[in-house]
């Protein structure tokens, strides 16, 4: 028998015992990881920070009058493909939505009625973002994802009003992955923002920073430096390297302090230098604190509790468990799916022909942040088939400035607008209105060039995931000339 076993082992070794053992140890490792727990403090702090930032963002949005300019004033909206059924709710409705969103964010921060406030915030926020793609921002997308993830973790079961209200909710130990999914999500944002920068224009023409930086040359102290092309190159390369590497340095306990220092420097610099970047830098600076140890967060909670021991002084051994084990497994499965999609989505552009920045097919939802300087002008013409004559459309009659600006560089919005115009002019009495657009776009200093086929009747085209053959190709040759 002994010999037999030996023979088997020897054979196994020959046949690649290594792999078998590695597979087993990997599996063990995975199970160990899934069963490992961590203190809940980082998640609780993250909830407070996120809720607080969202509350501030909603109030800021309100005070700037953007509810009115973006969701009440426009005559038409540009919903995302597949979400055309999402409609704004009118003046009263939209203000109620934002009010409810603010309250939900506040409750999120306080950890009050969390099981309701978290989903309510996610649904309302995402609803508002889906109304009109001309307001699309990567960081809005990020907020939607984070608030969705928050719905599935017990971030309210520590340092929250829910716990004060119902002490039995208290939990101090949670599965490590419940904290790590937020780190992973942040890492994905950074990493893909970095990968997106690995393109010729960004690295070797310092585009668009070489255009954006001199515009800020009136800044005190650093202003003069921004006029140098070299500065744009240094910033571009630093930005790309930073985005790609920062997640790794944040994950590594030994380097995370210095990494966080760079997070602050990087985002502060973008807040000062880049055009209209809004709340994004602050959200990232604060959200990134989730990478710090649970000790850090426990200390933080102790400090901000102002000696109110009932807020933080708990036994450290109350472990979270799913009421039904199946729920945990299901959730893990869904999270795997989510992160797989997250990793694949930024690469979907590979399925489309042409220059991604030019066509923007597969551009959104990919963490392509502040990546290009693009501007356009578009004239729409509606033809009355009864007379064969056409009229030029005054875009400002139907579009807000923001919508017109976004539409002038994004073909899918042009298509939506063309269909709107066909209906609008049809109502005016035009017979079978045909709509064409003459559009010129400049990309990263290329100089304006014809963007879409101006003889195409856009009313005959339908939105789909297939490539739009009426987008004219971007002439790279011209661009290299502009490089001089």
């Amino acid at each position, binding site marked *: 028998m002994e010999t037999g076993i030996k023979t088997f082992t020897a054979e196994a070794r020959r046949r690649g015992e290594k792999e078998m053992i590695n597979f087993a140890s990997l599996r063990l490792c995975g199970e160990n990881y899934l069963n490992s727990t961590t203190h809940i403090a980082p998640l609780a702090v993250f909830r407070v920070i996120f809720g607080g930032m969202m509350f501030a963002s909603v109030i800021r949005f309100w005070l700037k009058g953007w509810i009115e300019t973006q969701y009440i004033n426009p005559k038409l909206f540009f919903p995302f493909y597949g979400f055309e059924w999402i409609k704004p709710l009118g003046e009263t409705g939209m203000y109620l939505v934002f009010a409810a969103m603010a309250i939900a964010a506040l409750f999120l921060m306080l950890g009050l009625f969390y099981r309701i406030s978290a989903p309510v915030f996610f649904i309302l926020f995402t609803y508002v973002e889906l109304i009109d793609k001309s307001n699309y921002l990567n960081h809005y997308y990020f907020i939607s994802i984070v608030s969705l993830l928050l719905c599935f973790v017990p971030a309210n079961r520590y340092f929250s009003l829910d716990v004060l209200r119902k002490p039995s909710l208290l939990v101090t130990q949670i599965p490590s992955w419940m904290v790590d999914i937020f780190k992973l999500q942040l890492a994905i944002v950074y990493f893909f923002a970095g990968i997106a920068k690995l393109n010729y224009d960004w690295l070797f023409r310092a585009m668009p920073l070489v255009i954006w930086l001199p515009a800020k040359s009136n800044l005190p102290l650093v202003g003069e430096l921004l006029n140098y092309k070299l500065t744009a190159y240094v910033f571009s390369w630093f930005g790309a390297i930073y985005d790609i590497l920062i997640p790794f340095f944040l994950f590594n306990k030994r380097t995370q302090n210095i990494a966080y220092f760079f997070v602050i420097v990087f985002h502060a610099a973008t807040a000062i230098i880049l055009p*209209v970047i809004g709340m994004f830098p602050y959200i990232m600076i604060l959200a990134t604190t989730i990478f710090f140890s649970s000790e850090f967060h426990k200390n933080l909670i102790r400090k901000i509790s102002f000696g109110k021991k009932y807020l933080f002084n708990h036994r450290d051994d109350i472990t979270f468990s799913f009421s039904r084990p199946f729920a945990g497994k299901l959730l893990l499965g869904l999270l795997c799916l989510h992160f797989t999609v997250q990793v694949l989505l930024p690469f979907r552009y590979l399925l489309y022909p042409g220059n991604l920045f030019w066509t923007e097919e597969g551009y959104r939802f990919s963490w392509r942040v502040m990546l290009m300087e693009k501007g356009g002008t578009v004239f729409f013409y509606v033809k009355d088939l009864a007379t064969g004559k056409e009229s030029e459309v005054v875009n400002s009659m139907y579009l807000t400035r923001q919508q017109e600006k976004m539409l002038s560089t994004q073909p899918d919005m042009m298509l939506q607008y063309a269909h709107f115009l066909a209906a609008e002019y049809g109502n005016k009495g035009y017979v079978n209105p045909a709509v064409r657009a003459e559009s010129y776009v400049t990309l990263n200093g290329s100089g304006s060039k014809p963007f879409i086929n101006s003889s195409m009747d856009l009313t005959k085209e339908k939105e789909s995931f297939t490539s739009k053959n009426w987008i004219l190709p971007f002439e790279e040759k011209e661009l290299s000339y502009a490089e001089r």
Partner: protein
Amino acid sequence: MIIKRNFLNAMQSCLVAGLLVFSSCNPEGNNTVNFDRSAMLENIGSNIIIPNYTDLSDKMNLLQQAATDFTSAPDNSKLTTLQTTFRNAYLSWQKCSAFEVGPAMQVSLRMSVNTFPTDTVQIQSNLTSGSYNLEAANNIDARGFPAMDYLLHKRNGNNAEVLERFTTNPDAQDWKDYLTALINDTKTLVDAVKNNWETTGGNYLATFITNDGIDVGSSLGELVNQLNYDYEILKNARIGIPAGKQTLGIALPEKCEAYYAGYSVELALEQINAIKNLYLGFGTSNGSGLDDYLIALDARHDNQTLDEAIQTQLSLAAAALQNVPDPLSETVVNNQTIVNTAYTEIQKGVVLLKTDMPSAMSVLITYQDGDGD
């Protein structure tokens, strides 16, 4: 630690490689943007905006004087003088139309003094009722130059009929009063704006020069936006709408600027020249302007500089416009081709001014504040 060191090495190599590439592939281009935005703003403010407002204010004084002379004892020669001073004032306005920033924006000067076509029904009703507030919203198209144009001219050019309004007409006094009110209204607005710009008055010039960023609300940002807005008025209101561009090619002659006096093209030419001068920074001589900024930024369009493209296009547009005979209200009916040619050339300018120029300067074409990402 080894991994970290490798990362750092990789980072260093990348940086060195990047800098090498940078230094080798830019042997000719400018390595720095050398441009003083506040000097440009100072030139535009002191040598273009203030002198043009001063000129307009002077022309308004002359107009007021001529109107006083005329209304005290209307006759044909005084009417001709009045019409000439009106023409000069209207031409002078064209040179100020693009400056809708700061003081002018506060009082919506452009809309207040030059909303056309004018509403003759509203004017008649104001005139006969004798009680009207020109600043009320419903009088926006019953005031300013277009209303004066209507009062002082007949489409057929028959001055006897114009004179009749101010002499034998039973409402003659009402016509006189309304004319006086219109001129006073416009003059008051113009003088206030001019005064707000001047160093001896509100000194908006100082604010204008100091606000030398590029953001929404900066002087350059507003100037570029207004230049575009004004240029699109040329394209749409002055030429496009009368030519039927928005109405299936059916001409709408009555929509012309100065429809009654009949010198629409002359006014449009004055405006496009004013836009070109603003672009060039050309006051009494060619000073620092948007063109110099674009050159400093190394902005390009096809195989020429963006500045060359813009100057060429503005010249082509002006030349094509020059070919259109006045009165425009007749040309849009009789010779659509020639108007269409002018329209097309003007439209090409929109693309360069609205897309290429702001993109190169990193100025946003928008009146709204908003976030990006």
